[in-house]
């Protein structure tokens, strides 16, 4: 494998406070590691990720002339970038670092077997040391970023993100599948907070978007093709009538595709009477000074609401989540309408008026004598329609009584669910979805706006059920992620990619079809054509290498040699232990 310097490996075993050291004998692991081939330094330390641990690595690289570093700590998912940076600061190539997961893979799952856990830890470290000896430097590559952002969805989140990015000085392409901008909000009659209509809230935003010199709007259109990699995407936008199709190049994407209000067929006699409507349908009825029964246009005297319709249903796929916006929306609608009706009733499971100003509305509704009655999820209210009359029967758990009510209008607070074409969107942008059907963020706590696909952000309800004012904040946040990328102008990409040896390639196309990311094409400039990897698109998954019948593909940083050395270290420890340098 070419010129080789003698590996000089340093092993750093982390206590992670008590997380690892509480189960694994870390001192013993470090001591054993010192005997492994090529290990010239080995120690244990309270927190390797802390500044002091990082400093220790840098110091020891210099002191012992280390050229490979193994850190035995937690999952590389969080700290591999940290330690790669540390070894770089110590003067090594970042790919000469190897991490062993002694926490999730050892101490946390073998908490009650400290002996066996320690043995396993030693095995894993021995394997990592064997692999480290064979690690090679890889080049650090950057690609330039096209200073334009694609925003998918022209609801309140998409509009806000578009305005922010354009106001910051970058170009935006906004695509909306409906004929007009404004999403759900524009149809609504009452927004919270305040008491503006959706039109009043979103109208000025639409006007600004339409007249902004840096925003190009495509309505009645969809993104039908999407290709490329962070900083360099190409989207195909097609009008719904199929008459026009355009390709645009963008550096970043914000997916703000929103939600669909669940149509609760099969719930509470929905569909059996025109006077049973969803909250969304109520919102779209004319302003409430004049609440009339859809069936005959007579004024509504008794109104009822039922919460959690299609939400919070354990075991029902896509309906297990709380839809977040509805409790307040119901409380507000009930409080607003209480003055115009004789009786207003709200059936609920829990009242989740969590935000600022929400409790005031909830209290106002109660002060106005809106009746709140709690039902148990196991005993849902029964709704029947007899001769056009709506009859509700339920068990109030707080009063422990069976009750009955005959409303003129029944409003079902139905769930927020993903739009029908969500799967299409997921496939187009390589996004994954969680149990609620909405897109997964990169990290649910600390990276709620970015996704696992670099360069693609999510905002608003595309990420999870939420209300309009929360979606707006999301949108500005996602816009910041996009502009950070655009302002830098270039971005680093991973070098752990597939590499084709053109001498060995038999032009069979197996890898081209195997690649889930469309990263491999045929280089027709060669005769015969050979497979060519677009490195920025490659995720390093190895599917191509596994499929290649000619063994022409090497996975950089996961070479056969590197992997087999680990297997050897596990199966034949005697060969790889003992301290003598090979």
């Amino acid at each position, binding site marked *: 494998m070419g010129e080789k310097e003698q590996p000089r490996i340093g092993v750093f075993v982390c206590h992670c406070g008590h997380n690892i050291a509480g189960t694994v004998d870390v001192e013993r692991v470090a001591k054993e590691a010192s005997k492994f081939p090529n290990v010239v330094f080995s120690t244990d330390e309270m*927190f390797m990720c802390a*500044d002091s641990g990082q400093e220790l690595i840098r110091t020891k690289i210099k002191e012992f002339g280390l050229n490979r570093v193994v850190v035995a700590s937690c999952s590389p998912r*969080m*700290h591999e970038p940290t330690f790669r940076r540390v070894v770089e600061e110590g003067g090594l190539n970042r790919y000469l670092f190897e991490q062993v997961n002694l926490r999730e893979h050892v101490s946390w799952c073998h908490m009650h077997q400290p002996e066996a856990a320690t043995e396993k830890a030693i095995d894993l470290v021995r394997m990592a040391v064997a692999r480290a000896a064979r690690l090679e430097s890889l080049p650090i590559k950057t690609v330039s970023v096209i200073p334009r952002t694609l925003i998918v969805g022209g609801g309140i989140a998409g509009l806000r993100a578009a305005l922010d990015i354009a*106001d910051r000085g970058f170009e935006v392409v906004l695509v909306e599948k409906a004929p007009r901008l404004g999403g759900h909000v524009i149809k609504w009659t009452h927004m919270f907070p*305040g008491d503006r209509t959706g039109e009043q809230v979103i109208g000025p935003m639409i006007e600004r978007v339409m007249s902004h010199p840096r925003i190009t709007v495509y309505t009645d259109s969809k993104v039908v093709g999407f290709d490329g990699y962070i900083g360099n995407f190409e989207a195909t936008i097609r009008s719904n009538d199929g008459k026009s199709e355009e390709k645009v190049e963008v550096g970043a994407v914000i997916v703000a595709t929103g939600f669909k209000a669940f149509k609760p067929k099969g719930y509470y006699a929905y569909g059996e009477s025109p006077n049973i409507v969803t909250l969304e349908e109520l919102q779209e009825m004319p302003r409430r000074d004049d609440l009339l029964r859809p069936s005959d246009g007579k004024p509504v005297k008794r109104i009822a609401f039922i919460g959690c319709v299609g939400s919070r249903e354990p075991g029902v796929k896509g309906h297990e989540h709380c839809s977040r916006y509805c409790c307040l929306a119901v409380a507000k609608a009930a409080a607003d309408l209480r003055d115009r009706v004789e009786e207003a009733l709200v059936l609920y499971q829990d009242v989740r008026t969590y935000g600022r100003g929400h*409790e005031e509305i909830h209290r106002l509704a109660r002060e106005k004598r809106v009746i709140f009655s709690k039902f148990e999820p196991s005993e849902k209210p029964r709704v029947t329609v007899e001769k056009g009359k709506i009859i509700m029967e339920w068990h109030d758990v707080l009063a422990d009584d069976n009750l009955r009510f005959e409303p003129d209008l029944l409003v079902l607070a139905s769930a927020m669910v993903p739009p029908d074409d969500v799967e299409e969107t997921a496939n187009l942008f390589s996004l994954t979805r969680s149990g609620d059907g909405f897109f997964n963020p990169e990290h649910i706590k*600390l990276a709620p706006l970015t996704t696992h696909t670099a360069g693609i952000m999510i905002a608003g309800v595309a990420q999870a059920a939420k209300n309009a004012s929360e979606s707006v*904040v999301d949108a*500005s946040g996602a816009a910041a992620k996009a502009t950070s990328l655009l302002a830098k102008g270039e971005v680093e990409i991973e070098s752990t990619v597939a590499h084709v040896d053109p001498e060995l390639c038999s032009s069979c196309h197996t890898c081209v079809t195997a690649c889930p990311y469309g990263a491999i094409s045929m280089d027709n400039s060669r005769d015969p054509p050979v497979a060519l990897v677009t490195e920025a698109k490659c995720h390093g998954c190895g599917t191509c290498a596994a499929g290649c019948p000619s063994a022409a593909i090497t996975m950089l940083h996961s070479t056969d040699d590197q992997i087999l050395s680990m297997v050897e270290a596990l199966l034949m420890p005697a060969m790889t232990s003992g301290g003598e340098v090979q």
Partner: protein
Amino acid sequence: MSNGAARSNNVLVVGGGVAGMQAALDVANQGYKVYLVEKAPSIGGRMAALDKTFPTLDCSACILTPRLSEVARHPNIELLTYSEVQSVEGSLGDFTVRVLRKARYVREDRCSGCGDCARECPVEVPNEFDEFLGFRKAIYVMFPQSTPNVYTIDAEHCIRCKRCERVCERGAIDFDMQDEIVELKVGVVVLSVGYKLFDVRQYPRLGYGHHRNVITAMEFERLINAAGPTKGHLIRLSDGRMPKRIGFIQCVGARDVKKGVPNCSRVCCMYGIKNAVMAREHYPDAEVTVYYADIRAFGKGFEEFYEMAKTRFGVKFIKGRVGEIVEDPETANLQFYVEDTLSGEILDVEHDMIVLCPGLQPAEDLDKLAEMLGLETSTDGYIETRDAFAAPLETNHPGILVCGCADGPKDIPDSVTAGSAAAMKATILLSSGGAK
């Protein structure tokens, strides 16, 4: 990066918790200089002290540490820890900020964080980071991953024996250090000053401060934390024994008009459930009960986590307000009556440990800061924002933005999101439409 409209292109972020760090990073990543001012010796905020986070049970410190290093090492971020904003004058694009840099008595440029000084220090002080359950020295770091990794001498408790000075190989100890005032020029100010927890002593009937086994949720976080005062062993403070029957009481200082906390604090249901799950994780045969008013599991994955707490972890949930908690003088166990409002039964229960889950309140001295900056506050003391849809992070003072809990309680993802959004607004104001 230059443009005529703004005289300073720098941003001041006040508060180095998770929201402020995110705001700083997202501004700095766009090429602008950020001063991040934090009053504690380390950035990290509340999140650094939490054990696990809901709804994924990620270890809080573990997911936070990369963020801490990212902030500390960012070429466009200048950290001013152990510092406080004294005054802000001027207007958008042209603020003059005076910052008090409190004397650490340790030189940041020399200290390597080796800890030799703390080992030598003879003075032990109850550790505020551990909710005073453990001890630290008079020269200390707040927590192992403290950023910057620099020791601080707590002047109030230091006895000037100078043993640390003698043992420090780098000559980093400097007893002559003085507080100093630095003046910064910034174009935009972002307030991410966080929150304070409700003082549970305001409910005398719950017995906190009298009954040793009634603790707060933050004390619970430190007790179950592997880096905490008990190395993660959940014990009773009265006798060090393992609690077998643990109760969690929700809404302590939230949704209570009489106590001046009319609003829901948004996070307590979920941290309460998370802690209940952790209690079962620590002691699988312990009886764990949550006493609640409504369970508000509204965020992504929250309801699913609540369901899992009931079904997979066997946490019991009882809807009802608890009465006066009485301590058994023999056993230090805790007894009270509670009406299970779902069954209508009055229950007479006994627990070995009670964890009070306090609500959130505006940060200490937020009223003074608001007054100094001329910012409007709401009746519950948070900073008022201009418009929920058009300007959700903007205050009445142009160029002063808020994020995190400065304008109301938020959980971690909502704080992070607001931090990013504030960064967006800040850079729009500075760039005036220029793409650089």
